[in-house]
């Protein structure tokens, strides 16, 4: 990759004393599906709105093919966008909605008609062109909105939590549609969501936003296996944290003591910590091994609850210091058979799946 297709350069947005976005920098490759993931108020939507031209950044720049976008008003940016709320024009039919961006560009009628047909085919809504938006379901409306946003072949498509108003089943269905359309059109997509599952399902890369800063950018597996901050670890996948004491650190790795007694060596360390300081040990429920026989390398815990979740069984446990630690095991796993509340068990994990986060 020589020059990046879309460059977000040190974007900062201040509203009076509040800083909504702090110096966000991302390079986006052409055809990439990049998701901004974060809780509400983390600056992900504001960044998207700056790309759309609805907000001006306090400083920073956005370059598309090396040229700044900021000098161009929204209606000349040629960017597509699907909004969180339903924004189809209620007085126009589905066909007229898709034709709208083409009409304002004064394309010839035959050209517009052909494009509208192609777009309806793309979102699999052939035969719906004469319906009014009010006669369509929420999912259908968002598919029409997608067709409208892609009708003028924008180089970049922005999507601002487009599925948040839909129920889970419909959401998954349209996620598949979005993936298919992305593969088919090869349009560059910037997608905003607070739903980690949605982000993992759709994206090539994910940028995790927290308090106006990008904590980490990477593929789903990268973020899961190697979270840069405690926030990322909490946001991607399930995780539990145990307070621990740092014994020694070397080259970004730490030896720690947990639950007073046990020492664990050579765990990846993130953030700042020195020997003697307090830190947090992150463990993934699905990476813990449960054993009913006492072992010196296992963490002694007591079973506090067992929940059947279909293909998984969730075992809630408590350490001797009263910290909660969950274990997820496949249904029918031999370690669970005959397991009861109050049983003493030992948990083991490999150092590769654990992380230590400094204060």
């Amino acid at each position, binding site marked *: 990759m020589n020059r990046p297709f879309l460059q977000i350069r040190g974007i900062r947005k201040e509203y009076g004393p509040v800083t909504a976005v702090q110096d966000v920098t991302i390079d986006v490759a052409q055809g990439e599906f990049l998701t901004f993931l974060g809780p509400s108020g983390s600056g992900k939507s504001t960044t998207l709105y700056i790309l759309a031209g609805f907000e001006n950044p306090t400083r920073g720049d956005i370059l598309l093919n090396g040229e700044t976008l900021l000098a161009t008003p*929204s*209606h000349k940016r*040629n960017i597509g966008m699907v909004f969180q709320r339903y924004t189809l*024009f209620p007085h126009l039919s589905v066909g007229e909605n898709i034709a709208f*961006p083409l009409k*304002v560009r004064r394309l010839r009628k035959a050209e517009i008609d052909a494009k509208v047909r192609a777009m309806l085919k793309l979102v699999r809504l052939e035969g719906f062109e004469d319906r009014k938006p009010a006669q369509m379901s929420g999912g259908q409306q968002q598919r029409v*909105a997608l067709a*409208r946003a892609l009708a003028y072949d924008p180089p970049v498509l922005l999507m601002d939590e487009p599925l948040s108003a839909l129920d889970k089943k419909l959401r998954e269905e349209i996620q598949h549609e979005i993936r298919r359309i992305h593969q088919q059109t090869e349009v560059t997509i910037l997608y905003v969501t607070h739903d980690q599952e949605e982000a993992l399902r759709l994206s090539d890369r994910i940028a995790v936003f927290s308090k106006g800063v990008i904590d980490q950018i990477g593929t789903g597996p990268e973020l899961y296996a190697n979270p840069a901050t405690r926030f990322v670890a909490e946001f991607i996948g399930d995780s539990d944290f145990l307070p621990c004491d740092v014994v020694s650190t070397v080259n970004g790795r730490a030896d720690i003591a947990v639950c007073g007694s046990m020492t664990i060596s050579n765990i990846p360390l993130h953030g700042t910590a020195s020997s003697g300081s307090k830190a947090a040990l992150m463990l993934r429920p699905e990476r813990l091994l449960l054993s009913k026989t006492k072992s010196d390398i296992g963490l002694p815990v007591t079973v506090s609850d067992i929940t059947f979740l279909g293909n998984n069984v969730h075992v809630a446990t408590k350490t001797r210091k009263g910290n909660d630690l969950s274990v997820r095991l496949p249904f029918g796993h031999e370690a669970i058979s005959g397991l009861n509340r109050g049983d003493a068990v030992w948990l083991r994990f490999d150092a590769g799946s654990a992380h230590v986060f400094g204060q």
Partner: protein
Amino acid sequence: MVSQTETGSGRPNSPAQVRRLTDFDLTLPALGLLILFFVMPVAMLLTRSVTEPVPGLGNYAELLGSSTYLRIFANTFIVSSLVTLVSLLIGFPVAWALAIMPSRAASIVFAILLLSMWTNLLARTYAWMVLLQRTGVINKMLLGMGLIDTPLPLVNNLTGVTIGMTYIMLPFIILPLYGVIRKIDPAILQAAALCGANRWQSLVRVLLPLAMPGMAAGALMVFVMSLGYFVTPALLGGTSNMMLAELIAQFVQSLVNWGMGGAAALVLLVVTLALYAVQLRFFGTNRMGGR
């Protein structure tokens, strides 16, 4: 307490009692009042229009056959249309501004609008007379600035009536329009902008069509109210552009011709009802005020 009375009084919602409560006879007192004080006078006036001075449709023939009277009808329509048009042209930007203003600023503008509505109509009309007359504030200012050499004829003509009535009618356009524009999701206009629509295209292709119910409701209300308006045309208008209400007043008060007065009133009523029917046909009652 509540449960006690409910159990104590047995079953108040038995079918017989429910039917009694919706019974038609309960509305009779109000209905009687309406008939006595509203329908009766109108009916009597209309009866006189076909009985005085001689039975028949002579009054209507005279009213609709004479070029003098037809000119008054035409003038009534011209003034009403002009007032409606100017009110829309001024009212739309004001309603739009109100809708996007911070709520504190908007409530100040609303206070001004409502204060003007609550001020006595005659006082407001006389105020315009003072402003608009040959030696009035506006003419003096323009003369002083050297923009004109002779005072502009701003009162006792069509200009005066249009200015005075537009001022009075504006709130009736602004309030329903504001209601409709407030309900338009700003994201729809953002979507239009990203689709490539410039401000003008967004206005014409999106905003105006979506504001149409409010515009139609407001415009019709203003037009119908203008058709029968009396005070402002009488004070700010001239003899050459008399309106229908002034004609009715003249028939009844000066000429004591109840027959012609009644006939003119009926013509006005028929036109008003016809317009109301048009409104119902195209916009429906529930869309009044943009609901």
